[in-house]
């Protein structure tokens, strides 16, 4: 059987289905992995909480498998970002303001997975309310990059990427608003997938930038992602923006014949501003694509220069409204040391939110306020419309858009935390997919000379998840054959 921790969800499913391993053995093995890491001098700090009853649930899953009442994911573990609700579990979004909040209901994605028997094993660390690119803005402290613990995991789903990359979970749910799944996947050397906006229900995902938020999946194996998406996707009557897509046949993935497929590489994301070592990995990735018969071409997409500006208007605007509900009146932190209602609001929110969250609330309220709305929010939405149109036009001609996932390789903890603007620029390659609602996958494509992971990103057409994941699988198989 070999070691369990480190195996993918699909491998474990195969073993479980054949009865070669029990759910209890699987969960215990991942738990041990987590426990042993916690004892290290610098723990990864990927999990905020590993559920103490996970093994009990595994025993039940083993029974269900015996009695033939099991779902297709029965007994398989998954780690869940701290902003995706699981009924009767805590959910804090890495924030002090949600301390003590227990979810009274499950998110649709978790519910669908649990209906098939999956066991959420723990909550993973994240930048507060998913606002950040390093997983350093968490009330629980930063997560560390498993490849080198002096480095950031990337964010905001840093905990999810860290537990997957370190074998503490085979697979994890993260969430994206501007690259929060793909960036940490890239920094930690795993696959990270953001579905098309609307493919997965947002019900029960704590809102940040509602027009871009989307649950994503992190794993070392594209087939895991396909398996999770196939179960969790599709129309949800609780989410008015969810789409009636059918990805039930997504798993198992076939490899993609890339021969003759045209791939667009935006000039704006492949030259100036891109780290040299990242550029080298991009070139190597292009060589591989050519060797498969694909045709990568450089294409100018000037609007991509505006995405960071656009994003840091739209996302904070929506966030300022979405975070208004954390007022100390009904749940979470509540500071009643003041004298009146305004004191309750001010004291609770001053104490409960971290600096980055406050920064974005200020930004958002500013761009929405009377007299500034037209100049900022409205203009950003207009440019967003143009961007969508432009990218969709390019994707009619090209199969994918290829770029690095991040302009830079993983950087050291603390190196950008005092420079928000340089932090924001980390998102320059990922944001356009969120703004244009497109599906995108980060592929572990190589390393720097220091051995730090570098991810390449393929972005596909609206609801083109299948084609994207099959391309990722093709790369994955190549790696398995030892060709890279």
């Amino acid at each position: 059987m070999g070691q369990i921790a480190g195996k993918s969800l699909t491998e474990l499913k195969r073993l479980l289905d054949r009865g070669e391993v029990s759910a209890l053995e699987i969960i215990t093995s991942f738990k041990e992995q987590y426990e042993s890491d916690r004892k290290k001098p610098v723990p990864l700090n990927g999990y905020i909480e590993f559920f103490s009853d996970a093994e009990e649930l595994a025993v039940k899953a083993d029974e269900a498998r015996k009695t033939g009442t099991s779902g297709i994911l029965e007994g398989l573990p998954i780690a869940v970002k701290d902003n995706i609700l699981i009924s009767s579990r805590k959910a804090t979004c890495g924030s002090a303001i949600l301390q003590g909040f227990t979810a009274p209901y499950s998110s649709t994605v978790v519910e669908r997975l649990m209906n098939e028997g999956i066991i959420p094993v723990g909550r993973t660390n994240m930048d507060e309310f998913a606002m950040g690119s390093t997983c350093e803005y968490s009330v629980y402290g930063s997560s560390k990059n498993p490849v080198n613990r002096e480095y950031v995991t990337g964010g905001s789903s840093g905990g999810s990427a860290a537990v997957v990359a370190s074998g503490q979970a085979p697979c994890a749910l993260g969430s994206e608003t501007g690259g929060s799944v793909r960036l940490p996947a890239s920094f930690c050397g795993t696959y990270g997938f953001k579905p098309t906006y609307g493919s997965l229900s947002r019900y029960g995902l704590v809102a940040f930038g509602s027009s871009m938020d989307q649950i994503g999946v992190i794993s070392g194996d594209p087939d895991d992602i396909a398996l999770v998406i196939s179960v969790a996707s599709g129309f949800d009557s609780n989410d008015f923006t969810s789409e009636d897509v059918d990805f039930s046949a997504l798993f198992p993935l076939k490899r993609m014949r890339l021969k003759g497929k045209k791939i667009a590489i935006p000039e704006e994301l492949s030259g100036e501003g891109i780290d040299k070592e990242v550029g080298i990995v991009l070139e190597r990735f292009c060589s591989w694509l050519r060797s498969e018969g694909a045709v990568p071409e450089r294409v100018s997409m000037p609007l991509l220069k505006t995405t960071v500006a656009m994003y840091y208007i739209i996302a904070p605007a929506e966030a300022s409204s979405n975070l208004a509900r954390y007022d100390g009146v009904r749940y979470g932190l509540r500071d009643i040391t003041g004298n009146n209602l305004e004191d309750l609001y001010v004291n609770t929110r001053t104490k409960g939110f971290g600096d980055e969250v406050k920064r974005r609330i200020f930004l958002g309220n500013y761009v929405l306020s009377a007299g500034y709305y037209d100049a900022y929010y409205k203009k950003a939405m207009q440019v967003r419309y143009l961007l969508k149109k432009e990218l969709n036009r390019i994707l009619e001609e090209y199969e994918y858009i290829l770029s690095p996932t991040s302009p830079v390789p993983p950087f050291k903890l603390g190196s950008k935390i005092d420079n928000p603007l340089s932090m924001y620029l980390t998102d320059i390659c990922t944001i356009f997919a969120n703004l244009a609602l497109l599906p995108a996958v980060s592929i572990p494509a190589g390393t720097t000379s220091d051995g730090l992971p570098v991810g390449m990103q393929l972005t596909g057409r609206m609801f083109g998840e299948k084609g994207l994941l099959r391309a990722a699988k093709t790369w994955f198989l190549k790696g398995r054959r030892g060709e890279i």
Partner: protein
Amino acid sequence: MKYEVVIGCEVHVQLLTKTKAFCSCENRFGGIPNTRVCPVCLGLPGALPVVNQKMIEDAVLAGLALNCKVASVTGFDRKNYMYPDLPKGYQISQYDMPVCTGGKLDIETGDGKKSIRIIRLHMEEDAGKNLHLEDGSGLSYVDFNRCGTPLLEIVSEPDMRSPLEAVSYVQGIREIMKYLGISDCNMEEGSLRCDANINLWIYEDDKRYETPISEVKNMNSFKAMRNALKYEIKRQLAEWGEKRLTLTDTGKVTRGYNDRTGETVVQREKEEEADYRYFPEPDLKPVVITKDLEAEMGKRVGELPAAKRKRFVSQYGLKKGAASVLAASKALSDYFEAAAKGYREPVKIASWIITEVGGYLNTEGLTIEEFSLPPENITKLMEIVDSGIISSKIAKKVFARMAGSGESPDTIVKKLKLNQITDRDKLEGFVAEVMKENPQSVADFRKGKDHAIKFLMGRIMKLTKGRANPQVAAAILREKLGDG
């Protein structure tokens, strides 16, 4: 001093949809606090709104009844402000894509008919209710049962020139909403709320001066509305005399009406007015209103109460009072017209429906929509009375039975043998007549031919069309034969 009163109204109407505007909670007045709530209307993290289609239909229906133009696409926006009764920190409302625009409502004034122009009609959700304890504890509680109740906001042009006109306008709105069955418009329960904007145009030295606008709130009855507006006129005149302030000096002031003192008091000055930072609600895609839906709702609007009232008087000869009662509800007026169809005395039917049907519904606590008795049965019952078979007193008994059981009046009359003639005096008349016309048979019987009585009974039955009670008739016949 020559002056004109200028009034515009914002009317909020709570819809009677089964469920709330954006979730599936029951939509009903009152209840134990915080029992009709769910994650959506409580604004819990991760919860998302879903548009209630019935609310859209009701809004289109109301808009068409108010002669509005219906939008082909309507969108929702967030109105951002923090208050404990507003759990999300924003209200879902409509800003620049309201469902209906540009309508009018005709009112009766002393000088005849007058059209009040309607600027727009939009949908939004109601807030919860703050309850402030008055036990000295200083504690406040929030009841979220009302939170998420669908509202229509109807905004008029400042076309009204007196408190009386303003009251007529709101009464007109109320009549139509009730007629369409989309709201019960109960001002005391708050299912109809009106804010009035009022100021004066004062003509002095060939110039027109506009006094500061007061937005008057908290008018919980038509009487309160009339008094509040009358008070405002007096107050603004006095203020003009004293300070000569104009609209450009102070802008708009929000004032609350106090029913006890009969005065209005300042609630909010213009400087304190909130910046609501409206932006399109990202959780809800714009809703398309098809031409089919508009046509269907147009058909449902049909003839409105005012026109119907007139027609009932001219077509059926009803008195104004009866016409008003029947025309106030679409279901009731349809019921009346169905029953009156093909019956020569509609006035009689009208009074039957108002007193008997109305009384029955009242005691049973039913609405006319829930009344299962086909209107044709009322017509039939009237005809039975007309033919003299039963008296109108008996008819009330028949009605009580058929309202409960749904049986036809014929069946009930037969079952209860209400059609038999048992009255001795009446039967004696028939017996005498038959004996007089058949002297031979009478003579035969008296000679001992017993069978002759059968023949005579046969004649009695024929004469009464079978309605004579045979036992009573036979007894009388034997008596009379014996007498000879």
